[in-house]
């Protein structure tokens, strides 16, 4: 018996020691954004002796693959094995399941620890982002790399043509650019988000009370709109739309502000305009939040919290925004003199910020990622003319409702 205990102890001692305060931060940011994150982490470690954050890229092995799918997989696998990281990026639609399996320590449980976060600080978070991190009245996560969709345009190609302000004029403008310059007026990645832009701008929603509600007359109208742009030949739908726009081969491009820093480097004549409006102003926001994982060493969780508090502080979130094109997550950061001075120098960055007054968060149901794929297919079928837009939307509705009901189990 004694020998057995000694043997067990020897086994335990031979396991690699894990620094109790080391914070493993799993993320899916690569390229410009990954480099900016690494600089941020190094700054934190330098200014916080005794704490150590290790940024670990858990995106896909190959560039161009789905980095967040890889991160999601890595997180779920680590949780099943009982070896989660202390800190990770999570989308709002991942969080409910993580709460359900008791994988997270609620962020608000740290608010009274260390330097903490006051009620005033919490109010300082941009409302739409703060509320998106609230589940059952509790703040479980905090916003990190948040962005919003804008209309990028090539000033040189547009010349005296004004950037469009409505979806009707977007189509006209795309035709005009095509006619004058012989290049696609608009370039866009053919994804669910295009469908979503029109949907939310006309007051629609994707999912309400666990039912898909994006179809019907509005869904058909929206899908028909994008199919119409494709049949005009004024719009290029392609996975590499961003590269083509950056190379000056398209007049306009719809993407989030997260691509801003990268695009500015490649396209000196870059202009940014608000996303066109429909019957109302409503623009989809994007990006992830930070979550602290339970069942990790308490000292490391506390270290993770120190990092979250620091990285979402007005000064650091503003710096993060300047370096990446993501939006500052604090009102005082956006209004602060330093960021305002930056905006004067870089007016393109102000456009997304101004859209935050009417930002919309995509569904927070765990079925959302599957529904995204279903609607990606519906959009591809519609813009390629292989299926009538109305039929494609209704098919997507039926499949989405099946996902919503079947995934829940009992």
């Amino acid at each position, binding site marked *: 018996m004694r020998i057995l205990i000694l043997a067990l102890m020897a086994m335990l001692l031979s396991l690699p020691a894990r620094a109790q305060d080391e914070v493993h931060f799993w993320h899916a940011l690569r390229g410009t954004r990954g480099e900016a994150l690494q600089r941020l982490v190094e700054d934190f470690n330098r200014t916080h002796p005794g704490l150590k954050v290790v940024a670990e890229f858990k995106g896909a092995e190959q560039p161009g693959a789905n980095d967040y799918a890889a991160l999601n997989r890595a997180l779920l696998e680590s949780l099943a094995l009982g070896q989660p990281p202390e800190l990770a990026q999570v989308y709002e639609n991942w969080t409910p399941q993580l709460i359900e399996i008791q994988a997270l320590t609620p962020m608000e449980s740290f608010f009274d620890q260390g330097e903490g976060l006051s009620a005033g600080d919490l109010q300082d978070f941009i409302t*739409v982002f703060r*509320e998106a991190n609230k589940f059952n009245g509790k703040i479980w996560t905090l916003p990190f790399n948040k962005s919003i969709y804008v209309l990028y345009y090539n000033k040189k190609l547009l010349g005296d043509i004004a950037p469009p302000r409505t979806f009707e004029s977007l189509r006209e403008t795309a035709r005009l650019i095509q006619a004058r310059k012989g290049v696609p007026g608009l370039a866009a990645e053919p994804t669910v988000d295009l469908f979503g832009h029109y949907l939310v701008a006309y007051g629609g929603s994707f999912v309400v009370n666990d039912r898909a509600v994006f179809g019907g007359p509005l869904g058909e109208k929206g899908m028909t709109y994008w199919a119409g742009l494709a049949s005009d030949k004024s719009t290029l739908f392609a996975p590499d739309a961003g590269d083509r726009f950056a190379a000056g081969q398209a007049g306009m491009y719809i993407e989030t502000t997260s691509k801003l820093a990268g695009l500015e480097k490649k396209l000196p004549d870059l202009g940014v305009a608000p996303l066109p409006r429909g019957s109302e102003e409503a623009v989809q926001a994007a990006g992830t939040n930070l979550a602290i994982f339970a069942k990790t060493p308490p000292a490391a969780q506390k270290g993770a919290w120190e990092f979250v508090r620091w990285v979402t502080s007005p000064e650091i979130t503003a710096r993060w925004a300047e370096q990446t094109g993501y939006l500052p997550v604090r009102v005082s950061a956006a209004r602060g003199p330093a960021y305002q001075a930056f905006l004067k120098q870089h007016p393109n960055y102000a456009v997304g910020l101004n859209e935050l007054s009417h930002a919309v968060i995509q569904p927070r149901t765990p079925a959302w990622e599957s529904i995204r794929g279903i609607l990606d297919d519906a959009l591809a079928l519609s813009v390629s003319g292989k299926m009538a837009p109305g039929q494609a939307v209704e098919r997507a509705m039926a499949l989405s409702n099946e996902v919503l009901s079947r995934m829940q189990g009992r």
Partner: protein
Amino acid sequence: MSARFGWKTALQAFCLGLLLLAPGWCAEQEMALYANGVRVSAPCFVRDGIAYVPAQALAGALGISVQWIADQNVVKINGVPIEGTPLVQDGRVFLPVETLARAADTNVEWDGANRRILLSTRGNNASRPPVAVSTPAPQPAYTPPPPDPYATGAAPQRPVTARGTDPNVVSDPSWIAPGAVPSVAQNLPPNMRTPILDMSLPSPGGPAPNGEYVTNGGGSAMVPIQARSSGDIFVPRAGQNSIFQVTVTNVQAVGNIKEFYKPRAGHKFVVVYLSQQNISNEVQIYTGKFNLQDVSGNTYNGLDNLSNFWLVVLRPQGINFGYIVFELPLESSAASLTLNTVNQPPLVLPLQ
């Protein structure tokens, strides 16, 4: 209780019975086709008093190879040309059930009471599947732990915006089509009949340039380019361990995805449509990773950015479904799909 006959007698009764129907496609609710106990969803029909059955659709279930040489309009079963001329409708090859039964050494039974054609390989005991759809055995109740943050109403899709209002209002949800889900028939053995969920689109079919029969699928964002060597209609199949049931509802070889995504030179995409159900009584946090084995024994990982099979935590009875895209050499074909999870041996599903 319907009588059992030899195949000749059965066919006579069968054809006689069907003559009373109007000629043309047999409506699914009027007559069903079973092969070795598995329901085959492809249509059959009666012409001039002869019952025709879809040859390729039966290939998988009967364990035979069916090849159609398009330019000669000749069908080979197990490599042997059959007598007579096949009928081709909408790209599908039909044979008189008698011809097929003889060439494939198969028993035929006409179950008049239930209006079913039952084909079975000699010695197969599964020729007479139960008529009633079985319901899953009752399992101990599972209560999800509170709180349930994505329960009804808890997670508005448009949460409170900076405008301070929740615009999350639907005035009239009545146009939501109830249960209008494209799905394949419930043609699995009764013990595997969980709901079949399938994202693939119906196929126009049609002969391929190389004279082989084009596999099903296509007419969609994904266009098939190459036939499997035999059998046109993929017969859904399922496998399970103590935790998961995996059902593959369709497999398609395609030349591109959504027209935009092309495989590397000398390659094709293989799309596997599947569902995965948690049949245990525990919540499953990690549902595992699927990979594909080809006929040469090579293993392939799925391409996440082209697939739609997002990993989620699965509660008991919860089902995830979608499709996974693999990239295979043109000359190769899918042999099996394997699910690798933690703490479970791999679950292997043959695809051929």
